[in-house]
């Protein structure tokens, strides 16, 4: 059937972590622009950003056959999606780390204005990171299932959505670590979690649509991509795809978010945060399985020779 087995779990986690980290950073910085109301989202987002992407990069390094030579990937920035990505990700990690340092250590003196500029530029590289993870696969003509604009779009939307998931997870878990601080910020925390749900809802709906278009059109194609789609929908990966990606990763979170929004103020803070934890976990699990599934379903035209 020609499914690729060249890139496996390490690359799946790399693509996922690069996406979540980038998404979390954008959420954190975006919240900081909107003023005090969403302050509980700022630090979790920015603190998660660069470290998650760095961990992902470490996994990429481990997947290399000759990790010692990784520096050679920096030498020809324009030559390949990988070299472009190495630069984008490295710059994001450095800028994101500077932002974290500025928030953590008073010795690092960055003016309000400088921090804002830093945030905008870092966000740009965060978005580039998320898009890159999709383009990396998208440019591969030998795998028609990946070779479509829908793939980078899917990964970008998923990156932002899982980024929100990671942030809401941390915000929710804070209740268990520093309950008093959370109680003191009750209004803001409630506002923030609701805001995340409101923003994430259309993202999940978009992701569902893009995923549906991708699978449906590929299944209808005359290329080997039809086998990729079949592998996900009815084949060997069907359980992980339907249960992991669609139900746990998208339908459960979208339901929980819609429900918590309709209940609005009627939910206690504790209940709302626990709901956030579950939503966040589901989004993250779904995000990982999505990367696994897309990689595993990569049927190469070489299999049709």
């Amino acid at each position, binding site marked *: 059937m020609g499914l690729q087995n060249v890139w496996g779990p390490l690359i799946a986690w790399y693509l996922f972590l690069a996406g979540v980290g980038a998404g979390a950073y954008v959420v954190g910085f975006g919240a900081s622009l909107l003023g005090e109301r969403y302050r509980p989202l700022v630090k979790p987002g920015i603190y998660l950003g660069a470290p998650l992407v760095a961990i992902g990069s470490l996994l990429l390094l481990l997947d290399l*056959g000759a990790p010692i*030579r990784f520096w050679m990937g920096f030498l020809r920035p324009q030559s*390949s999606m990988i070299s472009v990505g190495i630069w984008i990700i490295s710059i994001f990690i450095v800028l994101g780390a500077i932002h974290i340092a500025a928030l953590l250590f008073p010795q690092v003196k960055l003016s309000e204005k400088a921090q804002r500029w830093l945030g905008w530029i870092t966000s740009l590289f965060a978005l580039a990171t998320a898009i890159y993870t999709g383009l990396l696969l998208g440019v591969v003509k030998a795998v028609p299932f990946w070779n479509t604009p829908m793939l980078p779009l899917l990964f970008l939307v998923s990156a932002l959505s899982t980024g929100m998931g990671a942030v809401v997870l941390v915000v929710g878990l804070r209740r268990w670590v520093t309950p008093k601080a959370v109680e003191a910020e009750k209004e803001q925390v409630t506002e923030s979690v609701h805001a995340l749900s409101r923003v994430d809802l259309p993202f999940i709906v978009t992701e569902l649509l893009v995923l549906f278009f991708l699978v449906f059109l590929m299944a209808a194609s005359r290329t080997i991509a039809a086998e990729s789609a079949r592998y996900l929908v009815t084949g060997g990966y069907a359980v992980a795809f339907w249960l992991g990606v669609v139900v746990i990763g998208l339908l459960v979170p979208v339901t929980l978010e819609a429900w918590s929004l309709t209940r609005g103020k009627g939910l206690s803070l504790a209940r709302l945060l626990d709901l956030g934890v579950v939503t966040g976990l589901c989004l993250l699990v779904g995000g990982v399985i999505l990367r696994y599934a897309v990689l595993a379903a990569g049927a190469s035209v*070489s299999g049709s020779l």
Partner: protein
Amino acid sequence: MRYGMVIDLSACVFCHSCTLACKVENGTPKGVYWSKVLHKELGKYPTPKRTILPVLCMHCQNAPCVEVCPTGASYKRPDGIVAVDYDKCMGCKYCEIACPYGARTFIHEIKPYFSEFGLTPYEEVMYKKHQTGVVEKCNFCLERVAKGEEPACVTTCPALARHFGDLDDPNSEVSRLIAQRHGRQLLPELGTEPSVYYLAP
């Protein structure tokens, strides 16, 4: 100058001599085949059909493997041969993914063929040319070509199904065969412009 190959499927007898000649010439590690013969069974009884296809690196003019290589380890030589500089390869395997012809193999480990006896004297010599953690593929036997010889699979083919020469020279044997017998490339729709042509069975 552009080296190329013509494989005459009407002459090929499916004997795998090319596969073995390649292994002997290049001393590729256990389980690694730069040149191989694919076979497929199509249709159902009582009208089954079997197809055979000898494949190797297509030495594409627009080589996807070269395009995706981040370090420049995979490169196109002026004579048309696509080669790999192992010392520059970081083993990201992007080329293996990008190659539409399945010509590339990542070397996980270099194992002796007869593990209970360790490396044979032949393996001891030949395995020095290989590295673990990098991606390998056929290089049109560039050491032989440099000496004016043809690739091992071409000289070995007992059915004389393989022809080697300069595709840029309209009078070369390969160019004439392609013109006269309508040589075809594999997956031409991808725009890779392979330098290996096939003559219909």
